[in-house]
Every structure is written in C-alpha cells, then in structure tokens.
C-alpha cells in the first residue's frame, strides 16, 4: 500500500495543500516550521481519526479559516487498486471510494476497510512501527531508552511506552496484591481477599448472634404485646368487676340511706300524728277546762271552806243517824255458840267416819253421837239467848235521843243550805255533782298539762310543727331521690345480682388481680430484657447488607483475580508465540539491514527470548557484543536496522509507507550515505517518506519542497 496523493484544506499552517507522492522514495523537505510534522499528522488523522467538530480538532484549524479542515488521501495498493479516503471535520463525514466502485460512508465501515488495507487498527500501532523519528534514536543515544525495551514496546503493539513485560509485571503485582492483600491510602477497600473472607467470617458470627438476639427480641416483643393485651383485658375486666362491686356498695349505701330516710320519714310522720293528737288533747282539755272554768279556778281556801261545810253536814247527819241505836251489842256474843255448833258437826262427822271404817266399837260411837248432840244443843241455846238480850237493851235508849235529834236536824238543814248555795254558785247541783265536776276539772287540767308536756317533748327545743313537717318533706324527698337513683340501669343491674353472683364476681376480681400482678411481673421482666439488651433491626440489616456486599466483593475480587490471572497467562503465551514466530525472521532481517548500514562491519544480529539484542562482527571468531558496548552511532544503526526489520515483519506482505522523520541527522556522512542507500533499496518495495530539513537527500528520490 502506498500514498499517492494527499490534499488538505484549512489544516494548521496549510489553508490548502496538495502533495503527490511517488511509489518509491519521497523526500519532503522544508525548513523548521515549514509543516513537515503537520503533514505526518494529517496523514495519521486521515487514516485513523473520526472526523468530528471537537475542541481538540479545533486546535488544528488553520488560522482564520472559516471551517474545520478536510483531509484527503489517495491510497494505492497492488492488490486492491486505488482508494480515496476523505474526512471532512467540519461536516463530520468520512468517505472511502475505490476505483472498483466500492464506496464506504459510515466511519466504522471506512475504518474497517482501511485496517484491512493498512494492516493495523490503531494509530498508536501504526505510528510505533512505521514511523522512525530522529527523537527515538536520540533517546537511544543518550540512554533515555533501551533498545530492547523500545523494540519490546513495538512488538507489544500497545500504546506508546507500553511493553508486554511491564503489563505482565503490573498484572503480577495486582494478582499478588489481591492474594496477599494490601493496604494503601487509595485502595484500602479493594483486594485482600483473605481480609475480606476473615471479615465475612466475623460478620457471619456477628449476624448469627444478632439474629439470635433479634429472634429473642421479636419473641419478647410478641410476648410483651400479648401480655400487654392480656393486661389490658384483665384491667378492663378488673375495672368492670370493681365497678360492679363499687356499684353494689353504692346500692347498699343507698338502701341503708333509703331505710334511714324512710324510717326518719315514718318517725316524723308518727311524730306529726302524735303531735296532732296531743294538740287535739290539748284543745279538748282546754275546751273542757273552759266549760269547767269555775271549778278549775277554785282556790285552796274556797275548796277548804266547801269541804269543811260538807264535813259539817256529814257530821251532823252522822250524829243524827247514830244516836238512837246502841252500838257494840250485836257482835261479840255470837262467836262462842257458833263454835260449839261447828264442833258438834265435826264430832258427828268423825263418828260417821269411824262407823264406816269399823275401827270403833259401838260405845264409843254412842258416846260420840251424844256428845255431838249436846254440843249442838248448847250452841243453839246460847245463840238464841244473845239475840234476846240485845233486843231488850235497844228498847231503853231510843226515847232519850229524840230531843237531841231535833236540834241536830236544824243544824243540819242550815249547813245544808249554806252548802247548797255555794254549790249553786259554782254550778253544781249537789255535792256529788260538785265533787264530780271538781274532779273532772282537775282531770282536764292534768290532761292539758300532760298534753302540753307531750307536745313540748315531741316538738323539742325551739321547733315548730312546720319545721318538723319540713323535715319530713326533706326526708321524703331524700327517699324519693334514693329510690330514683336505684332505678338507674347499672345500679338496677347490680341490684338484681344475687349474693352468689356477687360472691363470684368478688372471687373473679381477686383472681384477676392476682393474674394481673403475675402478668405485670412478666411484662416488667420482658421490658427490662428488651431495654437491657436491645437489638437494632437496622444494625442487623446493615450487617446483612454488609455481608452481602462482602460476599459480592469477594466474588468480584475472585472473579477479577481469575480475569487478571487469565489475562496474564494469555499475555505470556501471546508474547512467547509472537517472539517465537518473529525472532528468527527478525534476526535475519535485522542482520541484513545492520550489515548494510555498517558497511559489512557487523555480520549478524542475535535476538533472544527476552528481546535482548547482541551483534556479531564480521569475523567469525568474534564474540557476541552487547549493544551497550557499541558506539552511539553504531547503536543507532542497530536500532534503525531492528526497526526496519520489525516494520517488515509486522506488516508482512502489506508494506505500508515508511515514515522517516530525519532519523540520520546524527549520523556521520558515511553512515548517512549507507543509510540512504539502504532506504533507497527499501523504497523499491515500499514507499518511503523522508521528512527532512536538509538538502542531502535530494538525490534519493522525489523531492517535495515545502515553502
């Protein structure tokens, strides 16, 4: 593949530039700042860049240009014909046209086609292989770069400055770090699978403990809730039962009060009734006293006078009645004859008893009967004699008294008149009437006094009947109120309870109280345990999440470790295969080029498995020489030879253009001529673009001079 033409618009220092290259050696000549590096950069951008209007690409816009640049390359290949790639960075368009009519417009499609033409898919791969700059040789010269390392980088095919060994070392370190673990300020959270596993194990134990405690806590909480519910229910029952018993007490109290008030009311009613009766008695006594006012108003002197008067009448009347009769003759003389008659009867009864019992002989019986008859006869005679003697004595005294009796009659009549007058004044018909009315008046007075006393007693001190009536009404109201209170539903319900039911309630209350105390105790114990040793669910969740994270981290680390290991192994294998396939050809080509560059001073170049180069002089018996022992110029030649050989081998068959950025500037004249001679020979098979500011290469090929 070769570049036939390049045309650029508005790129860096070139508003417009068209360069036509020949298939062989091209010398792009110009002083510093003429745009040689710009042309190299334009070719690379045309081959690899995605045309976009970016700030980075903006930096390459020509000063004052209205649009971003357009790059166009015409490529020619012996196999595939002529291709034109055009990239417009203003419109972000890529085009690839082939002579055979093949057209590509999508960037990826264009790039794929270009890769197949060039044989490489990345700018870095391309520039690190087919671009040989003076700066590289200078770095080898002054020891900034080692030949082996530089070649290794190019064989690796990676970015600038990356070689396979370095990557493998990096992987080895990462693998070691992951296996053994490491702690750095930056990556303390990564790696250290062993630490993660240890942490996972510790965390697992902690989670198990937390779960156990949490399970216990959940159980405790459930028990607490259950006990709390039970306590509430028990409390409710307790309250209900207490209320019932309280109501029952209330009912009892009401009943007692009711009884008290009823009794009081009844007592007051009775008292009022008694008071009414007493008042009636008082009134009737007063009325009676009013009718017997004269008798009740009698004073003691008047009564005494009347009594004396009556006594006088009585005396006179008694004297009048006793005077004609002989007193004390008709009593004592009758006792003895009666005794004798009684004795005769006793003896006779005794004789009859003896006769009936046959315990006495006849003589005794006769004697007894005779004695009895005699006693009876004596007693009878004696009695009759006494009667006769009394009648005789009374007949002698009666006439003497008649005169005395006449006088006394007058005295009696006078006294009786005086008495009669006094009684008439009082309103009494006679002495008996007087006596009766006076007694009646006294009785009425007594009755009145008694009624008054009773009334005073009933009323009490400073109380009136109305007050008592009010008290009775108060008692009645209280009674009614209590009765109404008893009609309240809850009291009525309690009132209907039987003593057995009440007893049952009391027993239940006691049982509930005991149960409540037990539940409270259990509840307190559970609450204490919950408070004492709480497990935060959040803590458990965090630990579980952390465990999951750890498991994921471990899995990720192990997976990453496996990836690292596989990458490393494959890289080692790839490197070995590459070197194995490359080494012999590379040795041959490098030996050829180095021999040519040194004018036959050095016979061959040896490359070992670690890409260490050694050279052998032309003489057969000379030992292999390390590059470090070579002169700087020879070392440059060796490196240049190796680079050329590498470019040949890597792009085997494709032969992309070789870009030489004034690499021989440090060579002496002889070496430069040899190098130019070699490059001219190379240019027979592949296009060579030499960028230089010197006129020394004009004779080598097509010169493109930049102004």
């Amino acid at each position: 593949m070769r570049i036939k033409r390049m045309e650029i618009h508005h790129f860096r220092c070139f508003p417009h530039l068209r360069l036509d290259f020949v298939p062989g050696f091209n010398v792009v000549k110009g002083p510093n700042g003429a745009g040689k590096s710009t042309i190299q950069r334009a070719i690379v951008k045309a081959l690899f860049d995605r045309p976009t209007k970016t700030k980075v690409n903006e930096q390459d816009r020509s000063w004052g240009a209205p649009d971003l640049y357009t790059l166009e390359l015409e490529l020619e290949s012996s196999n595939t014909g002529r291709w034109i790639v055009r990239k417009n960075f203003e419109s972000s368009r890529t085009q690839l046209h082939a002579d055979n009519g093949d057209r590509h417009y999508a960037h990826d499609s264009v790039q794929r086609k270009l890769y197949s033409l060039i044989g490489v898919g990345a700018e870095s791969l391309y520039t690190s292989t087919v671009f040989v700059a003076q700066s590289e040789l200078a770095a080898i010269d002054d020891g900034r770069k080692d030949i082996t390392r530089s070649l290794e980088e190019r064989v690796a095919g990676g970015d600038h400055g990356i070689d396979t060994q370095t990557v493998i070392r990096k992987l080895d370190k990462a693998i070691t770090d992951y296996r053994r673990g490491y702690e750095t300020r930056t990556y303390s959270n990564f790696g250290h699978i062993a630490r993660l596993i240890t942490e996972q194990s510790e965390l697992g134990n902690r989670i198990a403990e937390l779960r156990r405690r949490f399970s216990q806590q959940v159980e405790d909480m459930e028990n607490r809730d259950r006990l709390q519910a039970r306590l509430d229910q028990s409390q409710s029952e307790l309250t209900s039962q207490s209320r019932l018993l309280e109501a029952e007490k209330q009912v009892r109290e009401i009943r007692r009060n009711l009884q008290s008030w009823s009794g009081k009311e009844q007592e007051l009613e009775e008292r009022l009734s008694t008071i009414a009766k007493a008042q009636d008695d008082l009134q009737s006594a007063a009325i009676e006293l009013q009718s017997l006012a004269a008798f009740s108003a009698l004073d003691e002197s008047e009564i005494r006078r009347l009594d004396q008067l009556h006594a006088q009448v009585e005396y006179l009347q008694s004297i009048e009645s006793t005077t004609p009769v002989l007193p004390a003759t008709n009593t004592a003389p009758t006792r003895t004859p009666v005794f004798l008659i009684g004795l005769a009867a006793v003896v006779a009864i005794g004789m009859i008893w003896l006769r009936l019992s046959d315990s006495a002989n006849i003589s005794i019986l006769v004697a007894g009967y005779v004695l009895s008859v005699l006693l009876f006869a004596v007693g009878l005679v004696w009695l009759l004699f006494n009667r006769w003697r009394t009648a005789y004595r009374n007949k002698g005294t009666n006439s003497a008294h008649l005169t005395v009796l006449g006088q006394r009659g007058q005295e009696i009549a006078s006294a009786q008149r005086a008495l009669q007058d006094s009684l008439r004044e009082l309103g009494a018909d006679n002495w008996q009437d007087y006596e009766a009315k006076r007694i009646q008046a006294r009785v009425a007075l007594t009755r009145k006094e008694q009624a008054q006393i009773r009334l005073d007693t009933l009323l009490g001190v400073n109380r009136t009947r109305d007050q008592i009536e009010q008290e009775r009404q108060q008692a009645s109201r209280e009674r009614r109120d209590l009765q109404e209170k008893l009609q309240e539903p809850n009291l009525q319900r309690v009132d209907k309870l039987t003593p057995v039911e009440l007893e049952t309630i009391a027993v239940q209350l006691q049982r509930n109280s005991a149960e409540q105390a037990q539940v409270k105790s259990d509840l307190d114990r559970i609450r204490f345990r919950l408070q004492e040793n709480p497990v935060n669910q959040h803590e458990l969740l965090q630990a579980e999440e952390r465990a999951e994270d750890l498991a994921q981290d471990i899995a990720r680390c192990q997976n990453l470790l496996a990836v690292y290991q596989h990458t490393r192994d494959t890289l080692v294998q790839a490197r070995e295969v590459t070197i194995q396939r490359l080494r012999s050809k590379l040795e041959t080509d490098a030996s050829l080029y180095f021999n040519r560059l040194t004018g036959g001073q050095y016979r061959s170049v040896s490359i070992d498995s670690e890409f260490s180069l050694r050279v052998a002089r032309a003489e057969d018996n000379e030992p292999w020489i390390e590059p470090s022992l070579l002169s700087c110029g020879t070392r440059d030649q060796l490196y240049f030879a190796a680079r050329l050989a590498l470019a040949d081998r890597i792009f085997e068959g494709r032969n992309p253009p070789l870009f030489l950025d004034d690499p021989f500037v440090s060579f002496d004249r002889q070496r430069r001529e040899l190098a130019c001679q070699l490059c001219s020979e190379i240019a027979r098979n592949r296009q060579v673009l030499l960028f230089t500011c010197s006129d020394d290469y004009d004779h080598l090929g097509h010169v493109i001079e930049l102004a």
Partner: protein
Amino acid sequence: VVDISNLSQSKVIDQIQAYSHADCILSVELTGLRSASEYLDLDAIGDVISGSCYAFHLVDRSTTRLDSLTTEQFPEMQVIGQFVRLLKAEIESTSDPDQRRLAEHALQLGVALLQGKEVLR
C-alpha cells in the same frame, strides 16, 4: 467518573469541562466501553482541561468493546495481535459461559492494559 461509552473525545472533554474551574483539583476517571477504533488522546484531553483548573488528574479505566475488537486491527506479529487471536479463539471455541465470560473480560483487560489504560484496581 465519566462514562465514555458512545462518546467522542470532544464530548468527553465537554463533560469534564463542565466540572472544571480555576480553583478546583479535578480527578477524572474514564469508564465504559469504547470502540477499538476510537483513539482517545489522553494527552490532548489533559492539555485542554489542565488549562482550566488548578490541577488535573486523569485515569482511563475504559475498556474496549468486544465487538469492535477484530483480528484485522491487530497485526499477527505483535503481542496484542496474538493476544486477541488467542482469546478470540478461546471465546469462540468454549461452550462454558463462565469460561467465555472470563475470556471476554481477559480480552478487554489485556487490550486496555496494552493500550496504556490504568484499568487495574
């Protein structure tokens, strides 16, 4: 952290510049999948961004899209070419999904490492 999947270099710069100002120390990590053909010029990004902030540190942890990794892009005579071919062959030949995934990750990682990306953690 900037995911550069399907982003061009200019878009990447724009995204980073959104966070940049004169008094900040900007540490940027590029992640995501990127086509093998997309060359991200970290130096160019650094040049643009470092002028607009106090300090700038850029780490490229992006990896290459598998479908964009074709063997044509990588010469056979380079380690990266051999590496891609070995793993591609392994990916295509293996029937074990785990082994296939492992090979795919290794392919992405190896290419990224050879391209100079700091993808190792």
